């Protein structure tokens, strides 16, 4: 397991602690192995990514599988992200009203809600929800196919598994994340307005007009379309973890867990970079 430093860390974080404390010397002794495993993991991910890019840009294109995956990632995630968005909208509405009232800035409510949903909460919540649902599903499905030799059977049938299985899934995630984010944002704004309207009369037209007053496309579009990068991360990590699985049922479980943990982690880390990038290029 020394070659899987990142996975080991992910699995350790997701597993309950045994309560046993490793001696410091043992931890230090494993450091070179973990260090090697860390770089080996990134190296393998790089090779995997290159193979997927090569497969994705050369014909034949797997349109039918892509459409199936668009449905799998998009349509089937829609109810979940809509519900999450609705809940976030209510929570933000309650919190924002309370905070703004304290500072006598209740008139800022619509803009606060719109900006916090579209610029921060919507993209991240959508990314994490899809990472949980799609990342685990893809990781487990591909891992199961790997351990039952179905991926070998695809390759033996002269079909490139990177094109059929990985490129289609990753592309579906890239295309669907921004659309799902728009759905999350819409639900959050709708329920956020509704929660406010129950307390104080506020027309939806007024809420939207005040919320988007003075806003430009550059304030919202980059934040929404950055989720395509989240999609890339979720699809890539889930396919990579699934297609390199070894070790039967335990391996399948490990692949599913690692897919979710690593995709969520990298998604949040990527957000740090993306936010800075957007602030620089879309001030």
């Amino acid at each position: 397991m020394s070659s899987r430093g990142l996975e080991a860390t992910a699995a350790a974080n997701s597993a309950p602690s045994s309560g046993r404390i490793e001696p410091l010397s043992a931890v230090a002794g494993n450091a070179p192995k973990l260090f090697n495993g860390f770089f080996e993991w990134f190296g393998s991910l790089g090779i995997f990514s290159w193979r997927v890019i090569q497969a994705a840009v050369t014909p034949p294109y797997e349109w039918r599988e892509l459409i199936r995956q668009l449905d799998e990632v998009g349509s089937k995630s829609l109810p979940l992200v809509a519900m999450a968005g609705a809940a976030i909208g209510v929570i933000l509405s309650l919190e924002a009203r309370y905070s703004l009232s304290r500072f006598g800035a209740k008139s800022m409510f619509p803009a606060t809600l719109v900006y916090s949903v579209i610029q921060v909460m919507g993209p991240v919540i959508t990314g994490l929800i899809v990472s949980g649902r799609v990342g685990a599903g893809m990781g487990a499905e591909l891992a199961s196919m790997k351990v039952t030799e179905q991926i070998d059977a695809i390759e033996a049938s002269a079909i490139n598994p990177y094109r059929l299985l990985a490129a289609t899934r990753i592309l579906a995630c890239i295309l669907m994340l921004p659309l799902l984010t728009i759905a999350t944002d819409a639900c959050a704004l709708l329920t956020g307005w509704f929660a406010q309207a129950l307390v104080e009369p506020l027309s939806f037209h007024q809420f939207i007009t005040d919320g988007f007053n003075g806003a430009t496309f550059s304030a919202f579009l980059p934040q929404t379309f950055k989720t395509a990068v989240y999609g890339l991360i979720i699809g890539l990590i889930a396919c990579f973890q699934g297609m390199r699985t070894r070790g039967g049922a335990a391996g399948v479980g490990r692949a599913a867990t690692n897919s979710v943990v690593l995709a969520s982690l990298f998604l949040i880390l990527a957000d740090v970079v993306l936010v800075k990038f957007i602030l620089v290029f879309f001030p």
Partner: protein
Amino acid sequence: MGTAYDITVKQADPERVGLMPVIAVENVYKSFAGHRVLNGITLRVGRGETVAVLGRSGTGKSVLLRLIIGLEKPDSGSVSIHGQDLAGLGLDRMGEIRKKIGFLFQSAALYDSLTVQENVAFPLEHHRRDMSKSERTDRVRQLLAEVGLDSNIDRMPSDISGGMQKRVGLARALALEPEILLLDEPTAGLDPISSGEINELILKLQRERRMASVVVTHDLHSAKTIAGRLALLHEGDVAIEGTFEDLQQSDIGFVKEFLKQS
């Protein structure tokens, strides 16, 4: 393992194999995690010939098949199909060679999200795009009939027996009309009647299609029924190859013990 035997390798008869063997495995070494599985193995198979590869568990029989179809790469040595060395070929170029090879996995490896019919249609959908849907359906039904499966074609793989799964796997392996057939334990886990039926089926296919075949098996009875030549692996190399009679007449200790125990 453990017991040391005097191993004398008997090479394939060059006339039988032909000047240009269809499959040529030359001096191949393969290790996994420091454990050597194949130890300089050489095996050649000619057109229309069926070679059964026998040996104890863990002697690299399945690894040999995976090397021939390019699912594994040798540490050293070469694997050639129709004289084309597989080393360094990209996935797409390798794909062109794989279209000529049918592979039956030990577990059948059917796609569990597809029906029996869809499993067999899978290679046709990807490589015979010139076929209309009705032509493809007819071809799938013909293939399934050929392996004795006229009914149950809309069932899922998990709903059919192990023997039926092997038949479906065989039909899928034959879909692209391969010139080479690789069978990994085709009768493993089957009752004697099902095993006999699979053996009959393989013999029938050999008569009709004249493919170069490699059959990995533990089943000596199956091997002598379906194969003209037997290769017995020991410690990652061919201990002896020849007809069943050649094996019976061998003085090699390991060969005698293997035949006695089988």
